């Protein structure tokens, strides 16, 4: 029944929303004030697309009945990822993981390589993994790298991934592993729930809408995605992903190298001594080798063979070059000996041994090293992926949120995912605003990185519904720009009397009001009693974070600038309220309040319309109510548990 009503409201929202926004575009714009009216209508269009994507998500809401029984012989590795979390926290999680009932082995993946933790792990019979030497001076890829490293030294068929603070229930595997009886399932995600959050959730830590209707809706489209923790993954799917990625990356880098080779050789010819026939000859040989490789690439030849042939051909040319150097040198020595034998020594003219020639031809001492750009091309013509610690990287490394990127690639390869709506692990949320902001920034940056690097709308292998489901999550992170406009519009009206809408007539109200009503109704019905207000507040109030995430991620993807990435600290940051963290919001709030006062004064003085003023003052009050959450957040002193904080009964949705 709920499903019927949800779908009915989705349809109504779409019809009324399209009706309103198309009227806004075609008949209501105040062109005299285009600089605010066009941004506002764009922001409204953004919001309409957002709500329609939400409607599409809940359209297919999937309420699962629970997993079939897990086969007892399924082998599972439990990975607890840690970097700098307190040792007792990591150990508590690991000890709880040991108590999981389904047969498994438990591993601590310590990216901090702490000897104390290693000792503790040994004492408690826990596996302990750190990065090997291969990772020195190579990209570490944060958590994705940590997991990829561990995948190479373990062998369970399935992997339960837990953040250091996520204490699992003993039945977490019994409840989930059975889903993998379906051979196409690669991922089972369970909710992330936090114990240290008071009922009013001042930092918006719990995400009941996301770990609820949104993931359930995505599940209906086979697009529920991996959220980094409290999830079980199929090793085979991950390894397949790693191998496909390896081949793709290698082919890409070889093609790139071949494309660059022509100009590298041309430059080398120009810059090198033109008189030197040796250089010219070697360059000819390199060119011939790369052209042949290009031909073989175009014919779809095997990469291993192609790169091996190039290397052999160039090696031979280099060896010939060294031999030529050496024989010239030998000839010189003989002439010198003929001139003045005594100086050369009693043993006669020294002869350069064959293995010396070989050594002098090796990559690090090769004369070809003089032509750096050419050497770089040749180095890239390889299948070893020397720039990475391990050639096969199962978890995606294109984003700081490796989880979503990995899930999307799995879906693109035809794997299926499951969202199991039952809390099976209890974690710790940030307890102060600063840490919370760092965490949100990181999620947003990661999501935007994926959008810019592997836009779901154009990924081959994804179904249309899956594309839109991934895109919907990315789209919500663009809300910072819309928020700025929603704050600016009432300020501009109340201070200057400029209305972005041509007129506040009946035409406006009969279109706008019904849309707003069904819009709110949709959240109420789809959320089935969940409070979504906190989420709505934060999606607007954190506008500076969202904007910063978009700009830093874009700079990172397009210009290779660093993100300024930080690991979210799990321990509370000390100190008093840090108002400076929300300076932009304070400025906006003051402007809003001042604008409301000015607007009312203008109304009293007969300078402003009563209706316009009233609507805009109401708008200001709404904006201030939205941002009021930050007042609580900034003063929040952390969680104080009154009783044992674990709920007596598990929160459970559909299952």
């Amino acid at each position, binding site marked *: 029944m709920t499903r019927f009503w949800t779908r009915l409201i989705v349809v109504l929202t779409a019809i009324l929303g399209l009706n309103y926004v198309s009227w806004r575009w075609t008949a209501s714009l105040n062109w005299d004030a285009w600089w605010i009216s066009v941004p506002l209508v764009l922001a409204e269009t953004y919001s309409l697309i957002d709500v329609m994507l939400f409607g599409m998500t809940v359209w297919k809401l999937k309420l699962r009945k629970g997993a079939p029984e897990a086969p007892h012989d399924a082998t599972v590795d439990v990975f607890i990822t840690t970097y700098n979390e307190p040792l007792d926290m990591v150990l508590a999680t690991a000890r709880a993981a040991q108590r999981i009932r389904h047969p498994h082995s438990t591993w601590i993946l310590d990216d901090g390589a702490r000897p104390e933790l290693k000792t503790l792990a040994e004492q408690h019979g826990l596996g302990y993994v750190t990065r090997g030497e291969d990772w020195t001076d190579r990209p570490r890829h944060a958590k994705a790298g940590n997991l990829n490293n561990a995948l190479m030294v373990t062998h369970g068929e399935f992997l339960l991934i837990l953040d250091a603070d996520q204490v699992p229930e003993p039945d977490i595997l019994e409840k989930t592993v059975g889903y993998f009886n379906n051979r196409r399932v690669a991922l089972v995600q369970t909710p992330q729930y936090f114990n240290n959050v008071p009922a009013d959730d001042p930092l918006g830590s719990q995400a009941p809408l996301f770990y609820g209707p949104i993931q359930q809706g995505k599940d209906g489209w086979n697009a529920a995605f991996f959220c980094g923790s409290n999830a079980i993954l199929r090793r085979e799917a991950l390894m397949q992903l790693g191998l496909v990625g390896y081949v793709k990356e290698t082919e890409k880098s070889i093609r790139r190298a071949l494309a660059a080779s022509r100009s590298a050789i041309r430059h080398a010819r120009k810059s090198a001594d033109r008189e030197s026939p040796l250089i010219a000859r070697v360059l000819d040989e390199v060119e011939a080798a790369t052209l042949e490789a290009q031909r073989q690439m175009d014919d779809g030849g095997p990469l291993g063979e192609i790169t091996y042939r190039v290397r052999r051909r160039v090696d031979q040319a280099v060896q010939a070059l060294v031999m030529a*150097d*050496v024989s010239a040198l030998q000839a*010189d020595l003989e002439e010198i000996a003929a001139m003045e034998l005594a100086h050369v020594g009693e043993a006669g003219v020294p002869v*350069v041994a064959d293995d010396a020639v070989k050594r002098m031809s090796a990559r690090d001492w*090769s004369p*070809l*090293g*003089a032509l750096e750009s050419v050497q770089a091309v040749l180095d890239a013509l390889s299948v070893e992926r020397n720039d990475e610690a391990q050639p096969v990287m199962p978890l995606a490394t294109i984003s700081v949120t490796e989880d979503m990127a990995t899930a999307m690639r799995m879906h693109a390869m035809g794997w299926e995912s499951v969202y199991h709506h039952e809390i099976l692990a209890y974690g710790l949320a940030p307890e102060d605003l600063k840490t919370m902001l760092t965490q949100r920034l990181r999620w947003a940056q990661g999501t935007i990185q994926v959008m810019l690097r592997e836009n779901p709308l154009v990924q081959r292998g994804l179904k249309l519904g899956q594309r839109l489901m991934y895109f919907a999550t990315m789209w919500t992170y663009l809300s910072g720009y819309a928020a700025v406009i929603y704050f600016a519009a009432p300020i501009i009206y109340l201070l200057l009397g400029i209305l972005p809408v041509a007129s506040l007539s009946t035409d406006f109200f009969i279109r706008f009001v019904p849309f707003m009503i069904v819009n709110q109704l949709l959240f109420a019905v789809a959320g089935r009693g969940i409070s979504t207000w906190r989420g709505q507040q934060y999606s607007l109030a954190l506008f500076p974070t969202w904007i910063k995430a978009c700009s830093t991620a874009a700079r990172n993807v397009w210009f290779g600038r660093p993100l300024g990435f930080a690991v979210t600290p799990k321990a509370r940051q000390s100190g008093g309220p840090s108002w400076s963290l929300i300076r932009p919001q304070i400025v906006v709030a003051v402007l809003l309040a001042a604008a409301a006062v000015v607007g009312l004064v203008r109304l009293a003085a007969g300078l402003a319309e009563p209706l316009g003023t009233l609507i805009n003052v109401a708008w200001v009050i709404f904006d201030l109510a939205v941002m009021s959450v930050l007042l609580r957040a900034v003063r929040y002193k952390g969680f104080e548990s009154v009783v044992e904080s674990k709920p007596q009964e598990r929160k459970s949705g559909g299952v």
Partner: protein
Amino acid sequence: MEFSYEIKDSYAEVKANGRLNMVSAPKLREFVTDVIAGGSSRIVVNLENTAFMDSSGLGALIGCLKAARQAGGDLRIAAVQPQVKMVLELTSMDRVLTSYASAEEAFSHD
């Protein structure tokens, strides 16, 4: 690669700064030939700032030795860095070219 020279009391000191490789080797040969043509046949190649040498660089050095000997002088090397020392030992050229600790020492005994 940068070359420079300085006429000292009894010899000319040639400094080779950078990597003595396939590209720069012919230039060293040319440079030293010019110095010899200018009248100095006792040459010290100061390798203090030569971090790297390949087979072409080595060949050039021997070529310069030959030119110096033909002009009735000699060529010596000084202040050899680790990689260059390895190359000299590997090819047993250290039996032909003794490396002196400094340019001043190279001709100090004759």
